[in-house]
């Protein structure tokens, strides 16, 4: 039997509220830049909160070459931009690859919500006869990977995994399996979500949106900040990456996925599902708990999430939990929904590459119930060979990815 091939990350692309492209994004993270502001894309006058993390300077025409920007939604535009950045970052010459063995796997929370929002606007205005115009071409969430594939002329498997706020991790996990099984040579894996009225309304109604600041693990944290963005990782087999002389950021060592089967919107009170996902990821990767050097937390900044996430990490790592640096980049980016865990996976890859951990910003008074090392307010230089990326979602979906430094 053939040995299972190692899968490596050779390209990173992201479009986020604090920066676009690997370098700009990483510099912003290390500097602790925050991307929040009053919501611009729709009126929040009827809401009790007004804070959002939108990307204000995004120009689709700078990135989308082949498709017409007018007919595709904003999530697709963000995704195409991040995918092209990842390809360029990987120095991959598209003319040299077999397009039928190049695929795209994307995670999302809402897909292309602007199309159903337009439907609803027309509907409530009484224009039911035209409400559905353009809906099928623009709305169903799988159009996002399809648009990326059409833009890049990739002809392998295209898949959307809409597992809400953990979706990016699911997409990367699946893409690594597709490569391991030999179904493709190149996979673009990531996540994308545009700023959505529906999502904002829902989180506002849950009382989950912070009025001024996202402060994960702080005693005075008041919630998350909905955001938008896209992140892609270019994945390929290690032997192929070495043969083409690619720069290797890290290996995708393994993953763990589980379901709480407990509550749609609240995590398990004892962190059972989240812990099972972390344990499964370590087991699949052949990595011991004491080898984990960094955890990129889900860390939304809501009172409940951060408390229960701390419990889950302690349940998994025991006393070791106090020695592992943990940070939440959502303190800077806000919560980019389905894109979040894909962008955070890129953070793990960069932490391994730069041997540096981005901070949890706005952490001034640590919650005694969140008593781990959350790397407050200042980036930290340290040894990172193994990084764990955790993400959780509505539906009780838990996910942990493990990235490891790649030995030559």
């Amino acid at each position, binding site marked *: 039997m053939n040995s299972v091939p190692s899968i490596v990350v050779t390209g990173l692309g992201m479009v986020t509220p604090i920066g676009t492209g690997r370098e700009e994004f990483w510099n912003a993270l290390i500097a602790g830049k925050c991307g929040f502001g009053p919501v611009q894309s729709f009126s929040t006058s*009827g809401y009790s909160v007004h804070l959002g993390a939108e990307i204000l300077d995004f120009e689709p025409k700078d990135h989308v070459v082949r498709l017409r920007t007018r007919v595709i939604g904003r999530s697709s535009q963000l995704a195409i931009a991040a995918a092209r950045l990842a390809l360029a970052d990987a120095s991959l010459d598209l003319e040299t690859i077999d397009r039928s063995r190049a695929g795209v796997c994307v995670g999302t929370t809402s897909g292309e919500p602007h199309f159903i929002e337009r*439907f609803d606007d027309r509907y409530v205005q009484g224009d039911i006869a035209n409400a559905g115009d353009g809906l099928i071409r623009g709305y169903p969430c799988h159009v996002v990977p399809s648009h990326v594939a059409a833009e890049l002329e990739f002809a392998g498997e295209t898949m959307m995994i809409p597992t809400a706020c953990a979706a990016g991790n*699911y997409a990367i996990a699946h893409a690594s399996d597709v490569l391991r099984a030999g179904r493709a040579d190149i996979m673009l894996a990531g996540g994308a979500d545009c700023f959505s009225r529906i999502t904002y309304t829902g989180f506002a109604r849950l009382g989950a949106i912070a009025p001024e600041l996202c402060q994960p693990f702080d005693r005075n944290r008041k919630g998350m900040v909905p955001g938008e963005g896209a992140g892609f990782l270019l994945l390929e087999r290690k032997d192929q990456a070495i043969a083409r002389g690619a720069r290797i950021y890290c290996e995708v060592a393994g993953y763990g996925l589980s379901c709480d089967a407990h509550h749609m919107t609240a995590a398990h009170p004892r962190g059972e599902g989240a812990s099972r996902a972390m344990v499964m990821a370590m087991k699949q990767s052949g990595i011991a708990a004491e080898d984990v050097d960094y955890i990129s937390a889900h860390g939304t900044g809501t009172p409940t999430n951060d408390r229960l996430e701390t419990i889950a990490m302690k349940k998994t790592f025991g006393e070791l939990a106090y020695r592992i640096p943990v940070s939440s980049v959502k303190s800077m980016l806000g919560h980019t929904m389905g894109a979040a865990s894909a962008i955070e996976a890129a953070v793990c890859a960069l932490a391994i590459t730069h041997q540096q951990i981005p901070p949890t910003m706005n952490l001034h008074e640590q919650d005694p119930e969140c008593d781990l090392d959350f790397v407050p307010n200042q980036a930290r230089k340290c040894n990172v060979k193994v990084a764990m990326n955790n993400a959780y979602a509505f539906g009780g979906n838990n996910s942990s990815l493990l990235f490891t430094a790649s030995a030559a």
Partner: protein
Amino acid sequence: MKRVAITGAGVITSFGDSPAAFHSALCNGEKASYRLEDSEAGVSACRQGGHIGSFQPEIYLKGKPLRALDRTGRIVAAAAKLALENSGWTAEVLGTRDAGLVLGTMFGSVHTISEFDRRGLTQGPSYVSPMDFANTVLNAAAGQTAIWHNLRGINSTIACGATSGLMALGYAADLIRHGGQTALLAGGADEFCFEAFCGFDQAGLLCRCNGHSEFPVPFSAQRSGFALGEGAALLMLEEWNEAEVRGASILGEICGHGSAYDPAGNGECGLDAIMRAMNSALYDSGIRAAEVSCISASANGSVFADRNEALAIRAAFNGSGDAVPVTAIKSMVGEALGASGALQTVALLQSMQTGLLPGIRGLEQPGPEIPALNLCRRKQDINTGFGLINSVGFDGNACSLVISGATPELNREMKSL
């Protein structure tokens, strides 16, 4: 490599809620009894498709309030209950072993999402319901079903348009073959709703059959589009050895799958992508085209997709395409989107066990551009062996799956060895 055993199935269709009843209605050439309100059809000329009028969730889902589940959630949770029962996964077993769920769906519930948004627009953002918000995520039905049945394993939702159900089966099969998973419910579901109907109608994809007796006929010369239906189908997939150890009755096997995308299709899946999906499914299964004993086509009455699929079958079977019998159950079920591929799989599995393949209801004269194929006009006997299932999306996605059926007798013999 690990093998993937199919140990049970559950379906929610207008033909009944057991694989046997579903298959026998298809073999009898029955048409789904859908209910389409005039208010839902609106300005559309299409009067075909609609809700499964007979679906009553409380028959299947007892003991807990149903209020938190929307229609998609209820259809999926009901199909899951039937599949768990059919495969012998009791609540006691689920308390000691983790099973997962992989659900293919095109829309989740676009009706729930749209209604939530419209309430915010008309009544104000503080009047939306938090419970409805939980169901606006596209993985809501999978999450609700996991809660209802205590499914703590991998819980994933796959959205690939009309190929979602088949893609979910392939995804789940690979988690068992390569990913160390031992038990996963997998399949697909989509509800019928006004929002989707309205979208498909304005995209010009629905049939123009406005007489209640007409129904779109795949491959026919008169085809003008599809009828939008609904349904759910979930199969219990288990790692073969584990299934044998627990004494499960093995109904069949997922042998392999493949998928492809047509980047140049501009909203249409060309024959090259459909052919690549079929060829990679055959390759993945380690079989030759000549070993396929029957095909369940994706064809639903669409003008271009049916033609492209027919040409692809002809090409993939390299001239022998007119020998292998081809059926198209969407002549009776209509297009059930995320459920379609999974419903086709359940029906074909049943065909491989009974040796009886349903015909294409209403097919007399195939369109002149349809190549010579063995299109079954009526139910017919088939050799059990390998069955091929196709799903072709509206937008460039194609997926194929290969299954084989294990007859109950054979299963018993294998156990006694």
